Each structure stands twice: as structure tokens, then as C-alpha cells.
């Protein structure tokens, strides 16, 4: 996939920014807070219909403006050109996503059409943050790769909200009627088991992708590992059965705490390097290398499953890496497809990247952007 052009209007500090990207490395250069990351954020709207670091639509709307609009021309690997448009109107609070002038009503049929992989300072939580960050990491990959997973996830979240309300009410009442919660127990196990199963398969398959990319970055004998910790079981039915019995065991505790305590929303993707827990023991350098390796692995995983090369967005990555690792990253991404990189200094590119037709650099200043 190749993002050929993007037009950004009234988005963050971009009044009107039009860019034509090259097929290889695109470097967005400029000082801090000039609007480099905002361009990546706008691109993430084209793939995910939202900001990659969770900013709300109102937040990214330029102050004093009534709407923002992002339009991208995307060439799919099969050779078909698509125009994707995301507009948000402040007065109605409505966000409209359309592909080739046809409105895309359902998020489930849009997500994954134009896959993106994003590495930004916000991604740091994947290796060092709470388990929720790693669940988000898996969910974003799997949702882009599998519509079935995304649908299950949406429905699971719906069940969770309803079920939590019952438990919250039960907590304040001091009692719970079994017949009120039982249908929701079954729904929880039904969707929850599918999510757990899919994530477990993902973890097993993803391991090889991650080891490959880690080895490229860190030439040592260190072996990273991931393992999915959740309700046990090797088939959906098995997981559903253990989930149902776990739900029964936790009944009184769930009422006491007023929330659902069993299910994939509490699972963990355990990461370790050579048998040592990453969260507990990894050095800063290991964290950084592992994160980059995970993202490169994500890129290849998505590529293999979608038969479509994702857009790779890298936000301010080199300031976190030493020179050697930066070179490794550049070597790796230089040949894989289209990447869009923000950075404050261009020295990192000197030895490896030539600014020919394949690669292009842009200077971003006060919300305007010019190609050099």
C-alpha cells in the first residue's frame, strides 16, 4: 500500500497542508511543536479513523474552526487507487468516513482496509506499561487483520458494559439475582473465549516474527519471548468451559467489587528476554530494542496476513535510540516499503538514505510543510 497524497485541513496547527509522498522513506523534519507528529496523526485517521494516541476529535480540531477534513489518495498493492476521506463537524459532533465518495457506515467494515503500523513515544507502554497497553497492542493488530476478531471484540465490550452495570447495581443493593446475570455470563464466555483463543494463537505465531526482527537489531544471543496468560484451553469450547467455571468461582467477589473479574479484558501478554521478565528486569536499551522489534514484527505480521504492505509511521524514534541502533532501524525499514518518519535532525540519514525519487524529505514549520 502506498499513500500518494494527503490533504489536511483545520487539523491541529495545519490550516491547509497538501503533501505528495515518495514510495520509500519520507522524512518530516523540523523543530519541536511545528506540526510533524500532527501529520502522522492525520494519516492514522485515514487508517484507523482516530488519533493514534487517543486524542479526541474535538482536541485535534483547530481552535476556532467548525470542521476538519483529511483526504488521502492510497494506492493498494493490487494497483487500485482509493480516495479516503475523514471529516469531522463540530456542531453535529459527527465524523464521516468515506472511501471513493461512498460513506462507510460501519467501523467494522473499514478497519483493516488501509493497515497502519505506528511507532511513537506513546508505544513505550507496550514493554514497560500496565497489561492494558499490551492488550491494546494485540487488539489493534488483530482488529486490522481479522474483521471477525474486531466484531467479537466490539460485542465483548458491549457485554462487559452491561454486565458491569448489573454487578455495580448488585453491589449497591447488596444482593444479586442469578437470573439477571446468567444470560450475560453466557454471552461473556461466548465472546470472551473467542477473543482469548485468537490472542493465544496470535502470541504463538507472533513469537517468530518478533525473534527475527530482534535478531536484526541486537546482534546477540538474547532471545525474546512472549506468552499469552489468560483463561486456559486450547480450543474455543475448552476456554468457554473454563471461563464459565471461573465466573462461578468469582461470583461473590465480583459483586463485592462491582465489576467483571474474569475474561480477556484482564489477560496479559507476558514478555521476557532470555527468560527474564521484561517489565521487571530489562534495561532501558533492551526496552527500546524490544519495542522497535515488536513494531517491525507487527509490520511483517500484518503484511503477511493482509497481503497488503501497511503504512509504517515512525514518530520521533531516533531520539530514543543510539546511533548504532538507529542505523539498524534505517537499514531494516529502508527496503520494506513506504515509511513516514518524523525527526528533529536529519543527520541520522546521512550515510544511508539518498534523497532521490524513492525517498523524500519535508520541512515542517508552524503548520506548513514544504518538500525539499
Amino acid at each position, binding site marked *: 500500500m502506498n499513500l500518494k497524497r494527503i490533504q489536511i485541513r483545520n487539523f491541529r496547527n495545519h490550516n491547509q497542508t497538501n503533501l505528495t509522498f515518495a514510495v520509500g522513506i519520507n522524512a518530516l523534519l523540523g523543530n519541536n511543536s511545528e506540526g510533524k507528529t500532527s501529520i502522522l496523526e492525520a494519516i492514522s485517521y485515514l487508517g484507523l479513523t482516530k488519533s493514534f494516541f487517543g486524542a479526541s476529535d474535538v482536541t485535534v480540531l483547530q481552535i476556532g474552526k467548525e470542521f476538519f477534513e483529511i483526504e488521502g489518495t492510497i494506492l493498494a498493492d493490487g494497483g487500485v487507487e482509493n480516495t479516503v476521506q475523514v471529516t469531522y463537524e463540530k456542531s453535529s459532533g459527527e465524523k464521516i468516513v468515506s472511501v471513493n465518495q461512498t460513506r462507510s457506515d*460501519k467501523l*467494522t*467494515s473499514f478497519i483493516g482496509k488501509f493497515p497502519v503500523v505506528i511507532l511513537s513515544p506513546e508505544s513505550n507502554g507496550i514493554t514497560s506499561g500496565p497489561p492494558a497497553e499490551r492488550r491494546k497492542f494485540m487488539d489493534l493488530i488483530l482488529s486490522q487483520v481479522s*474483521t*471477525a476478531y*474486531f*466484531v467479537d471484540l466490539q*460485542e465483548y465490550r*458491549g*457485554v462487559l*458494559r*452491561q*454486565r458491569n*452495570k*448489573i454487578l455495580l*447495581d448488585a453491589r449497591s443493593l447488596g444482593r444479586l439475582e442469578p*437470573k*439477571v446475570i*446468567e*444470560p*450475560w455470563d*453466557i*454471552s461473556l464466555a461466548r465472546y470472551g473465549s473467542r477473543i482469548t483463543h485468537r490472542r493465544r494463537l496470535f502470541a504463538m505465531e507472533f513469537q517468530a516474527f518478533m525473534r527475527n526482527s530482534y535478531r536484526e537489531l541486537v546482534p546477540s544471543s538474547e532471545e525474546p519471548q512472549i506468552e499469552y496468560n489468560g483463561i486456559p484451553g486450547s480450543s474455543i469450547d475448552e476456554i468457554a468451559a473454563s471461563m464459565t467455571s471461573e465466573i462461578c468461582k468469582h461470583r461473590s467477589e465480583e459483586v463485592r467489587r462491582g465489576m467483571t473479574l474474569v475474561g480477556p479484558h484482564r489477560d496479559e501478554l507476558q514478555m521476557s528476554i532470555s527468560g527474564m521478565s521484561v517489565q521487571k528486569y530489562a534495561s532501558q536499551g533492551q526496552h527500546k530494542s524490544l519495542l522497535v522489534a515488536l513494531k517491525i514484527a507487527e509490520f511483517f505480521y500484518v503484511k503477511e496476513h493482509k497481503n497488503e504492505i501497511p503504512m509504517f509511521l515512525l514518530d520521533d524514534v531516533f531520539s530514543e535510540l543510539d546511533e548504532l541502533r538507529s542505523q539498524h532501524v534505517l537499514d531494516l525499514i529502508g527496503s520494506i516499503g513506504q515509511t513516514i518518519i518524523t525527526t528533529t535532525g536529519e543527520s541520522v540519514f546521512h550515510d544511508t538514505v539518498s534523497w532521490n525519487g524513492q525517498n523524500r524529505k519535508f520541512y515542517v514549520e508552524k503548520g506548513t510543510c514544504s518538500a525539499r
Partner: protein
Amino acid sequence: MLYTSEALQQLIEEFAQLPGIGTKSAQRLALYVLKRPREEVVKMANALVSVKDRIKYCSSCWNITDVDPCIICCSPKREHEVICVVEEPNDVLALERTNEYRGLYHVLGGSLSPLDGIGPEDIKVRELLARVNGKVKEVILAMNPNVEGEATTIYLTRLLKPLGVKVTRIARGIPVGGDLEFADDATLTRALEGREIL
């Protein structure tokens, strides 16, 4: 917004409260009403009031009706051994349009949704169970395909099965007459799961 007539403003505000109607549509409707002859407007107003005054709920199936029991429940032409359970009266209208279904209905008046404060006591479940006596052979569950409809289906299945009645649910899948390639991914995914052996 300020209007030059208080009466007009009031009408626009009333229209704007209707589902699916925003302020702009409400303005258009209000101005349309203004242009109609007086007798037609009176007719419309009377229709609105009589909906509230005359319509009651059928004491058997809980559909909306003028007479109790309703014409579907009274009809000797319908199969009284089959009951199709739906969430709202609208769903009855949809199924009746098919001209295919010959059984009776049962309108629950909603689906289980704790977030909206709707539990088993708030929908017509007890009334349904009372109807499922020896004569009823099949209960078809036709809930909406969302998590609330799903939970309602599970809940009813658990209550109905022990009564020895055949419990079925309507299929989820591809719209008839639509091309497979234009079906949205979520529907297609569910349709694959619900595939049948031939």
C-alpha cells in the same frame, strides 16, 4: 435560534424531539404544516391524539391494537401453535410484511439491557411463559442481532426449553438479493459462522 413566531418555534421544538429529526428537518416539517389547509392539520392532530387514546396493548401478545385481543391473536386462519417472540411492535410489522409467517407473536417491549435499567421483570417474559402451555409447539426467537438481543435470546431459551417446547431462532446472514461482495464484513463473518450443512 429565535423565530418571529412563538407558535412556530414551539412546533419546531416538538418536531425536533422526534427520533431521526434534527432542527433543520423540524423547521421544514413545521413550515409544511403551516402551508396545509386547516382541516388537514386538524386531521393530523386528531390522529396523533387518538393514537394515545384508542390504542391499547393486546392482553395476549402485547402488540399494539384497537381491540383486545388483537386481530392476529383472534384470527382462526393463523397457526396458534407457533409463537414468534420479538422486541417491539415494529418488528411485528416487519414480519407481517413478508406475508410468509402464519403464526402468532409475542412482543416483549424491549430487550435485556442493564445499562438502560431493563431487567427480566421489565419485559413481558412472565406473560410469554404463561402462553406456552401444552398447545404451543414452537417458539421462534427473533431478537435484534446485538449483544442485548443475544442475552435476551439466551435468557428466554433457558426458561423455555424446560417447558418441552421447540425453541428456534432466526438466522443471521446475507441480505437476499444483495451481492456477496457488497455484504459488510461483519455480516459476512457471522453468516460464515452460521453456515448450514447441505
